[in-house]
Every structure is written in C-alpha cells, then in structure tokens.
C-alpha cells in the first residue's frame, strides 16, 4: 500500500491554500481523493455514523488499509458488517436510501480503472458507481474505508 499526500490547488482561486489530496493503490487500482470541506464533512458524518453503527465505525477507522481489508476479507466479518449496514440503511418506509451515503462518500474519488466501452480511463467514480463496484463489495468497502479515513482519520 502506497499512500501519498499533497495539497490541491485552491478550488476557488482566491485563497492561497487548498484541501489536501490523497492518493493510494488498492488492489492494483490507483485512487485519488480530496479531503471533504468542513461543511460537507459535518453534513455527512451523522449519516455515516448511523449507517455503520459502532462496530462498523471502528472498522472504518482501523489504522491502515491492510488491517481493515484483512478484517473485511474474513467472511464472518464481512457478513456481519453488511448485515448491519443493510439493517441501518433501510429506512422507516422500507427503502434503502441510507446506502446512498456510501455512493456520496466515494463518488468524488478518482479511479484509473473506470471502464468506458472497451477502454479504461481515469475519472470520478460517481456516475459509474453501480457498474464499477458490481459484484465486488469487498473492494467497495476497502475504498470506502480509505476515503473515510482521508477526511475523518488518518489515511
């Protein structure tokens, strides 16, 4: 696991500093994400905490990707985590809108393995989320954990 940290150019151009940009490689795929702004972080946090529950949050804040990924790859842990997440995601009306927060969490992250037609390109995951993670929930968990730690813990 190789993780780097840089400072992105100012988004608006009128302030000389910017949000930190982080890069890593997970399962051979290069990812780049920018730390959430304070306001966005505060809006997302309650939703994430509700979705993950106490145990899930502990796992997401695990000290490094290898530890976290190792845990998720254990069938029992993955099953327990997914079960809890689904339970928390289902709202009072029976929908699973809670899961949208995961899409929101990783949507702005850039991957170099977005498949468009027969080619792989470097792009934001957002619009390709469903196809990108189809059948690969373990990878989704690993990417989500890393993105989460970039804004709320130590990447």
């Amino acid at each position, binding site marked *: 696991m190789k993780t780097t940290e840089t400072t992105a150019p100012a988004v608006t151009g009128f302030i000389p500093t910017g949000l930190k940009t982080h890069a890593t490689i997970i399962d051979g795929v290069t990812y780049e994400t920018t730390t959430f702004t*304070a306001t966005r972080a505060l809006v997302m946090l309650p939703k994430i905490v509700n979705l993950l529950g106490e145990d899930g949050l502990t796992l997401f804040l695990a000290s490094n990707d290898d530890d976290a990924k190792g845990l998720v790859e254990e069938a029992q842990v993955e099953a327990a985590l997914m079960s809890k997440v689904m339970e928390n995601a289902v709202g009072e009306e029976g929908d699973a809108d809670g899961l949208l927060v995961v899409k929101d969490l990783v949507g702005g992250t850039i991957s170099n393995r977005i498949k468009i037609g027969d080619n792989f390109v470097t792009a934001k995951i957002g619009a390709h989320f469903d196809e990108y993670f189809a059948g690969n929930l373990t990878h989704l968990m690993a990417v989500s954990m890393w993105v989460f730690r970039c804004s709320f813990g130590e990447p």
Partner: protein
Amino acid sequence: MGVSLFFRRALVRRPLAKWSISERAGGPHNGIDTENVPWQIFVACSDGESVNATTYMQLQTVIDFEGLQDILEMHEVHNSWKHAEVLNAELRAKISQG
C-alpha cells in the same frame, strides 16, 4: 455511540484547559440556538456580534474538518482571554474599592 469512537482527528487533539464563561449563564435570557446550521459552523463564523461570511464560504470550499477544529480551538482560547479580562477588571475594581 461512544465518544471515543468519533473522529480520530478530534480524538488525538490535545484538550484545552477547562474554563467557564458566565455571559449567558449570568441571567435567565439565553436567546436561541441554530436549527439548520451545525453549531460548529456557527461558532467558527461568529465572533459573538456578527457572522463572518468569508469564513462561512471558506468552510464550504477550502477548509476541511481538521481546519474547522483549529478555528474552534482558536475561538475557545480567544473567548477565555476575553472572559479573563472581564474577571481581572472586576477584581481590580474590588481592590480599588478597598
């Protein structure tokens, strides 16, 4: 939800010394609290008299969660100094009165 599980960046920050403020606690009137704005954003943008729109904008564009905590810490320290000045002035007044 245990507090210790909350954000690691908040957890690893060294806690400030405890201090108390009596501005709002000094009487029965407390005003109102925010309903739609996270209180951290309000505290970061407010100097007690006005709202700093520039900070508000920056919190939505270039300041991250860690930066917000820095701002809140600086507000806390500044408020403690202002409160200390008031207490010191009261103390000097008492001493001069004899």
